[in-house]
């Protein structure tokens, strides 16, 4: 499957997941957005040399996956690119920081190894958290939450329009590149002589489409900005969800769960 097709499928999948009637899906989008950002911020603030504490942070994605009925396998597959990137940046650490912190049996564990492992965990948790957000919250709801956070209307309107036309244009781009590759079967990409015309055609069509979209808006009373609906009330559930997770995340950040469990056992 081509890259573009994969992208289209992914968007369809996310959309189908977000429009389910789930426990997490019903929570007010503002609560979910704030919890996600809060969670990521606190997770990222862990010092690199403290891998013990960061494990506790798995609680949020684990609970959300369970409550939202989300496949862990599919979510973990989503982590691959980010882990590769973090790995590429963090790979130097074990080489530079070779101070041995402790020994696991015969194996010396160095500061660099720890910091790299912490980094990978951070990367995984952050991606999981935002993936869980989009799996349980539709783009329109996220835009509604952004509006509540006073993000300017023009930007929210624009984001909604981009989201609306992403699929249309992805399919158009797919058709164009297929038409190209069918007549140039041995080429991996687009030859440089066709760069301008191919992408330029797509751009011109997009601009023309924008004109039609504008006319369509105009004919239906558009005056510069969208009137967005979905005045979803912040119900008690959502408020509890928000307050609960904000608290738990802070707790997990500053109280080492594993140490605590260990001392209780003693």
């Amino acid at each position, binding site marked *: 499957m081509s890259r573009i097709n994969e992208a289209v499928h992914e968007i369809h999948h996310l959309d189908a997941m977000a429009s389910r009637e789930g426990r997490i899906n019903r929570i007010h989008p503002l609560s979910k957005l704030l919890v996600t950002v809060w969670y990521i911020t606190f997770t990222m603030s862990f010092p690199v040399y403290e891998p013990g504490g960061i494990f506790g942070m798995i609680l949020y994605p684990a609970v959300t996956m369970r409550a939202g009925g989300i496949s862990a396998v599919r979510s973990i597959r989503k982590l691959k690119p980010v882990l590769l990137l973090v790995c590429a940046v963090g790979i130097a650490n074990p080489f530079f920081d070779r101070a041995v912190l402790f020994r696991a049996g015969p194996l010396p564990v160095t500061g660099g190894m720890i910091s790299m492992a912490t980094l990978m965990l951070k990367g995984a948790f952050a991606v999981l958290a935002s993936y869980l957000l989009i799996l349980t919250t539709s783009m*329109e709801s996220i835009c509604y939450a952004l509006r509540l956070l006073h993000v300017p209307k023009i930007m929210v309107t624009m984001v909604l329009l981009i*989201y609306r036309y992403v699929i249309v244009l992805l399919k158009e781009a797919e058709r164009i590149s297929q038409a190209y590759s069918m007549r140039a079967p041995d080429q991996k990409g687009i030859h440089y002589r066709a760069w301008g015309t191919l992408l330029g055609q797509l751009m011109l069509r997009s601009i023309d489409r924008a004109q039609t979209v504008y006319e*369509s*808006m105009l*004919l239906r*009373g558009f005056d510069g900005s969208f009137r967005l609906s979905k005045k979803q009330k912040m119900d008690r559930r959502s408020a509890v969800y928000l307050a609960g997770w904000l608290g738990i995340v802070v707790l997990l950040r500053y109280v080492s769960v594993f140490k605590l469990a260990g001392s209780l056992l003693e």
Partner: protein
Amino acid sequence: MNKIEVNGLTFSYEKRASSSRKNVLSGLNFTAEDGESIGLIGANGAGKSTLLKLMVGLLTDYEGELRIGGIRAEKASLADIRKKTGYVFQDSDSQLFMSTVYEDVAFAPRNYGLSEEETRERTLRALESVHMEQMKDRHIYRLSGGEKKRASIASILSMEPEVILMDEPSAALDPKNRRSLIHVLNGLSGTKIIASHDLDFIYDTCERTILIADGRLAADGPTEEILRDQTLLEDNGLELPLSFSRTLE
């Protein structure tokens, strides 16, 4: 009362009068009564789309007279004209710019300042008349071509327009979707003008047909009469519809 009055309508995309100026429409005359369904036919470049765009105020600066519901179409009256007329674009993807069916159909009433309650009522009514009430929460990009077309129609029905203009509504629809569209259109009240190359479609939806060629009125009369007139059609760059050519044989 006449819903649409077109009198000596002349239009050109070039603004200045010069000898080389080409009129897209020249001296067009016709009227449409309330509730009439009119097919608008003509070869490519005959001026069909231009006429539709003039009627909805996407193009202005014409010469002659153009009245919709008694109001002269001009810059000052654009808002009134647009409230009375709904325009269904050929490309549904451009027409439907909101993310879900409901949001798109609710766009116009909301923008015209109706309350959320009224908006909801109108939206559901519009969706019902195109048989899409089950799909109201669907994302636009998940709709089929036929569903998109019906959603486009619903998106203008929610404005409760007096005049409905359509540009090639049956283009790229499979036979089944085409049939259901004919069914939907025949169930709509209000004045309709349908521009199309699909003459069989016109035959199934309009009792009257206007033929334009090179911006001029070539014929205006009962659909059956015009569509059976092989010489008239061929002189103006069209062909006899399939259903008629078969009966002639």
